[in-house]
């Protein structure tokens, strides 16, 4: 008898996070899935483009210098592309995009990354070898 009470209490505890997880997923179901692609620019910029089935959504771009550590870069985007011109040479930048509608934000899109090229090193040792 005592055991059953303990067991049901344990069950309740275990199912609590499960319930929260389900609620989250259901919340995210309201918004669309996003397909994100990257077209890397050459002159210190990264161009992102994505597709979404949600026509009334606004989008938020997240950026980070390591995979999985992105933070919000710009929200309220109404078009499905964004060009990031504030990138640093020689870094690799990671991005994902979310869609929002009526204050509800979707889960992140697939993550994409772009390596921003560095300037070539400055040549050294310039000298005249012969003159006539």
């Amino acid at each position, binding site marked *: 008898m005592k055991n059953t009470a303990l067991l049901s209490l344990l069950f309740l505890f275990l199912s609590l996070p499960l319930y929260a997880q389900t609620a989250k997923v259901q919340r995210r179901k309201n918004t669309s899935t996003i397909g994100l692609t990257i077209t890397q620019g*050459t*002159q210190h910029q990264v161009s992102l483009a994505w597709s979404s089935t949600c026509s009334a959504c606004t989008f938020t771009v997240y950026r980070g210098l390591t995979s999985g550590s992105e933070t919000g870069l710009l929200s309220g985007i109404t078009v499905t592309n964004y060009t990031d011109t504030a990138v640093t*040479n020689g870094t690799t930048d990671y991005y994902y995009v979310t869609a929002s509608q009526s204050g509800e934000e979707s889960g992140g899109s697939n993550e994409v990354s772009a390596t921003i*090229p*560095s*300037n*070539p*090193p*400055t*040549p*050294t*040792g*310039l*000298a*005249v*070898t*012969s*003159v*006539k």
Partner: protein
Amino acid sequence: MRKLLFLALGLLTAAPSFPSSDAYGSSRHYISVQWNKGSYGTTVVFWLFRSDDLTHYAQIATTRNNTQTTWTDSTVQGGKTYSYYVAAYDTLTKEESGPSDIVTQAVPK
């Protein structure tokens, strides 16, 4: 048949005539420069810039590739002084390096 053979031989021997060494005679001036090979990727070329007033530089040459680190400028005039600098340019990323140090050379008359 024999005619054809002679014709072919004639064509072969009449190869384009390169300027003989005389064409670069004693009056012909040049300045040769070189710079360090460094460790550049294969998409890099070098741009050579020249000035004859130490102020206004114009690009006068692009190397074939990242391993060509010499250039002979045979468009110089005797008695003038020229300055050069070189920059690396990545043809893939479109990124250019900073300018190298400047080297200045007077051409004998």
